[in-house]
């Protein structure tokens, strides 16, 4: 389990933010792209989010990992970008995401479609847990939900994915 960032004191330093940015840029940008559906917009959202984090670094309370705090800013920025672009009729069903289209094994498409059908919060939770390797507390902070809700969200996502992938096979 990844335990990054600084816990236990208020405020974040520029050096800490820069180290987090340089070390985790790819993970931030790619997960953000699953929300925005566009890699360039995702990069923009990450740049803006870190800029916001720099401006507000003194307001970081230090009661959780710095990375989780930044994730929340990144995801909020990515979601705002989506809301600005597409007036969604049915927000929960609105799918955003991407695929690089290069040499997927055969079942990637099924996983992708199954993921696409998840509500955005569940999908993002899946990426944060299994791709970004955040723990439940950090995911809760990033998504703005309680730690217990994270477990329920991930369980619901995995159950749905399992069911849909089994449907595809049969």
């Amino acid at each position, binding site marked *: 389990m990844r335990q990054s960032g600084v816990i236990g004191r208020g405020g974040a330093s520029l050096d800490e933010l*820069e180290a987090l940015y340089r070390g985790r840029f790819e993970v931030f940008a790619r997960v953000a792209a699953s929300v925005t559906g566009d890699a360039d917009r995702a990069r923009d959202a990450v740049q803006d989010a870190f800029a916001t984090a720099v401006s507000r670094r003194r307001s970081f309370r230090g009661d959780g990992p710095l990375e989780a705090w930044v994730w929340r800013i990144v995801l909020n920025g990515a979601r705002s970008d989506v809301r600005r672009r597409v007036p969604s009729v049915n927000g929960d069903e609105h799918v955003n*995401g991407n695929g690089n289209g290069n040499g997927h094994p055969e079942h990637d*498409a099924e996983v992708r479609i199954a993921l696409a059908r998840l509500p955005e919060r569940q999908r993002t939770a899946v990426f944060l847990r299994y791709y970004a390797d955040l723990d439940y507390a950090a995911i809760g902070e990033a998504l703005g939900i309680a730690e217990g809700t994270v477990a329920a969200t991930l369980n619901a996502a995995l159950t749905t994915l399992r069911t849909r992938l089994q449907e595809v096979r049969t």
Partner: protein
Amino acid sequence: MTELDPTILDRLLPPTPGSPDWEDVMRRSGWRTTHRRRRFVALVAAALIVVAGTASALGTVRAVFSSPRENSKIAYLRGGGLYVMDSDGSGQERLARNVDCCVTWSADGRTLAYTVRGNGVWAVRTERGPNFRRAGSKPWMLARDGRFPAWSPDMWLIAYSADRGIFVVAVDGSGRRRLVDDGAVPRWSPDGRRIAFLRRGDLWVMNADGTGQRNLTDSPEEAEAGATWSPDGRTILFERRVRNLATRTTGGAVEIFVTALDGGEERRLTSNTAYDGRASWSPDGRRIAFICGFVDARVCVMNGDGTDRRDLGARTNNDSPLAWSPDGKQIAYTARDDSAVEVMNADGSDKHRLTSSPTGEVFVAWATDSLFEFRPPPD
């Protein structure tokens, strides 16, 4: 569960868009450093961003997808059935029945969207896999009504015509919403940011969210159709039924035009009394294949600026599409005499047929065609 192995999620996510740029972050935050070197670096970074922004405004976009697959598939219709085969004619397989029209490949060449007669827009996988017992199993409905589906280059969304407007829906059929009240035949730009479409005989373009609608042709007395983005996304090919100067009516010939997205003027690429249409860019954006002649329809090619027009001597039908292979070396089309799917080299040599059945076939699309196979524009 094994499906959520990080390596799978890693493959599903898009590639990283460029490298980290901390100076850009600092600039956006309004941070002012007194350190001269950092300020210099920030100035250089800002200049680069301005240059990049200018280039972007002119249409330069980064690659979305890399090299095409080695064994690209060809889709075709036979008696209302939708079939696929390998590009050498082997492995022919039926995927769906009662297919009406408008078959289009997803960017990765693994899924087809199409219209079912009287029953909306559907999608189907084209390959076997560990999770599919056979290709074509379980097609799924994208929309109950509609025609002309178009995949977004990232493969998550499909735009289509319905109810006199344009809708967009997620690849699983969820989240349907109307983008345009008045329009038809959407075509996604290679970078996924814009959609070209037809409205009352004119060619229009808008942002992918439906905002910023612009009329590109504004020709009330002439009708446009067949919009096709260039691989670099800077220009759109289209065909126009030109005004007949002799009779002062719109009953003239169909000719091929190209228009630039950002401020350029449109150019007429063909000019004669015969039909020229169904234009298709080569994957490198340098050549255009098209159908020349209406009754005696043949496959012709020309340069992107209309020069070096050549008749490749392949007899086809004026209402059948044609397409370049993903590597740009071959062109597929429907043979006129017995409706077989044929391919030839891009110079017209080595014409040979891939199918032959008593009822005949109609070539419809080559996987990873030039619409979606983005390549950087030539310098």
